[in-house]
């Protein structure tokens, strides 16, 4: 599904990713943890193609394709989805028209016909309900005036609507109350399937109780310094990151 090979990337001439290697097979869930500023979000942005994030070395294979060759929207249409740590507010563009534009674009890429307005509405309403957001959120501007938790749920709603092949969730759990955390986890779990993979970036073991990862990686200083199964997350929760630094050195 996704093969990251010796990925180096920089932002504003500052080296942030310093050789990431990661292999994600269909159906797998990979959790990425790591201290603040270690480069987790950067990895997400590099994978989604954000401007200003420059790959200086390495390669990324997405399915049969070279991910790094693709534009932002091509990646999305190919099935890569990034749930943002800080989703942006876009007043004036309604959530509904935004979602429709997005779904249509992805479907067109897969040579599927546009959904008619009624089926789309139905689908939108059902995912909206699934993440426990009021229907009125569909009419509001994209993320406009949404609370932190509502923004995160809006991200999950989009994911459910777009049904990506690879979803990267960047701290989708931070700022969520317990109920919302479950809503998000259920959303993710409902999409789990043998041909769909997830990268879950988080600081808290707690989320991984709900979304069980196959692998847990620790990203520190722009590198994956340790990988393991879900027990690693428990270990991190107990010991923090300091011991890893020693181990690496």
């Amino acid at each position, binding site marked *: 599904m996704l093969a990251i090979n010796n990925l180096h990337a920089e932002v504003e001439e500052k080296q942030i990713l310093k050789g990431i290697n990661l292999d994600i097979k269909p159906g797998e869930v990979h959790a990425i943890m790591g201290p603040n500023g270690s480069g987790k979000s950067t990895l997400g942005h590099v994978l989604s193609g954000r*401007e200003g994030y420059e790959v200086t070395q390495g390669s990324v294979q997405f399915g049969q394709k070279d991910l790094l060759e693709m*534009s932002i929207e091509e990646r999305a249409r190919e099935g890569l989805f990034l749930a943002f740590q800080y989703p942006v507010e876009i007043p004036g563009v309604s959530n509904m028209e935004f979602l429709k534009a997005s779904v249509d674009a992805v479907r067109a890429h897969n040579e599927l016909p546009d959904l008619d307005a009624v089926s789309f509405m139905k689908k939108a309403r059902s995912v909206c309900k699934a993440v426990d957001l009021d229907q009125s959120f569909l009419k509001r501007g994209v993320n406009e005036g949404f609370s932190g938790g509502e923004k995160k749920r809006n991200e999950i709603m989009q994911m459910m609507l777009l049904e990506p092949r690879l979803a990267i969730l960047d701290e989708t759990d931070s700022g969520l109350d317990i109920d919302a955390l479950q809503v998000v986890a259920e959303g993710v779990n409902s999409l789990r399937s043998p041909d769909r993979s997830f990268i879950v970036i988080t600081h808290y073991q707690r989320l991984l109780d709900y979304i069980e990862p196959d692998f847990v990686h620790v990203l520190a200083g722009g590198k994956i310094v340790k990988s393991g199964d879900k027990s690693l997350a428990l270990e991190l929760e107990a010991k923090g990151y300091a011991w890893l630094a020693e181990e690496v050195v």
Partner: protein
Amino acid sequence: MSDLILQAAQAEKTTPLPWLADFQQLQNNTWLRQAVPTRKTEAWRYTPLNRLEKGNFFGAPAQVHECSECLQEQISLPDANGDELDCYRLVFVNGFYAESLSALGELQTGVSLCRFGDANEAQQSAIKTHLGTIANDSVNLFTTLNNSQLQEGVLLSLDDGVVLDKPLRILWLGSAQAVPFSVTQRLLVLMGANSQAMVLEQHLSDDAEQNSFTNGVTELSLGEGAQLHHYRLHQEHESVLHIGGVFADLGKNSLLNSFHLAFGSVLTRIDIVVNHRGQGAHSELSGIYLPRNNQYVDYHTCIEHRVPNCTSNEVFRGIIGDSARAVFNGRIHIHRDAQKTSAKLSNKNLLTSNRAEIDSKPELEIYADDVLCAHGATISQIEDEALHYLRTRGISDQEARVLLSFGFINTLIEKIPHTEIAEYLRPKLAVLFARDPELLRHIV
């Protein structure tokens, strides 16, 4: 320069209003004493008047025209069910009343609605009493010209407590003719205490080079507790020159909600003056300007707080493309003793071409201390972050730009309380953002 003054003063009237002759003579004398503003005249420093001066618009009178098919089509405004909006409709073509296109029907008691050419004695007297008194404080010399040149107009007068049962829609249509011509348009709204109304003014024209100069002045008088929703939409052909104004007097606890739009005309200069004259009055003023090609749009707004305890809120947004130019001047004037005033103004602009230009001048003039006043003006581009977000959802860069630009003004369309007008405008505005309908399908 003075050629324009003279020519305009001597322009021939085809259907003069004899009962208004004295007033018009006086106004004409005033007009003759005017000097055409120059670049050094502060209120006109950005406005290019050379087209007006060179256009010879006062040489020949406008002609009465058969209404073209194109114009007839433009008249349609569907309601929420897709039927034609139920309203009082007055239609003028090149300034002349078009009875066949108009629909007045039965009027409620307490409602006086007529065109000037049809005014009965009582209506004539109301017009004579109020005409020009609300626009009185204006510095816009073209109001004087309007006073002296008008041959038609609309009067809406509501008795105390009357709630106008249907919207009033006034269509000022332009129809092309071979020789340059000028049209004078006028609306006078007199609202008694606690009366309510919705008035929609539209400036339209057929799809041909107009070669015309339009001077449209609107005067609104709101009595105590009166509420008016007013729209003024400039949708003319790109060749029209339009200079006009909207002047409002707000009585105690009255409420004015006035929405403005300009995407037609090669030159649009609109002066809007809102006088808060009675305590507790509130005004909401909003507007959108979308000049393209070589259009020039200029809104000069002036919110006068003359008495204490009034509030005003003003929001104007513009997107300027190609070689177009927009000017926005938003003045808030708090008179001495107008304590406890709250006045806000926001003006935001997007430039989409490197030949486009915007000049924004928000002004605060404050002579009272216990007030809350703020204005903000920005000139910016589409936000990178928003653009990125849309693209990560698979939306193409092009479509994302259209969505975001449209979104920039849509925030104002969304606030329009009459949904049928919002729905009517949306597609008309969307087409200004892209030629390819594929790019528009998610906004209309």
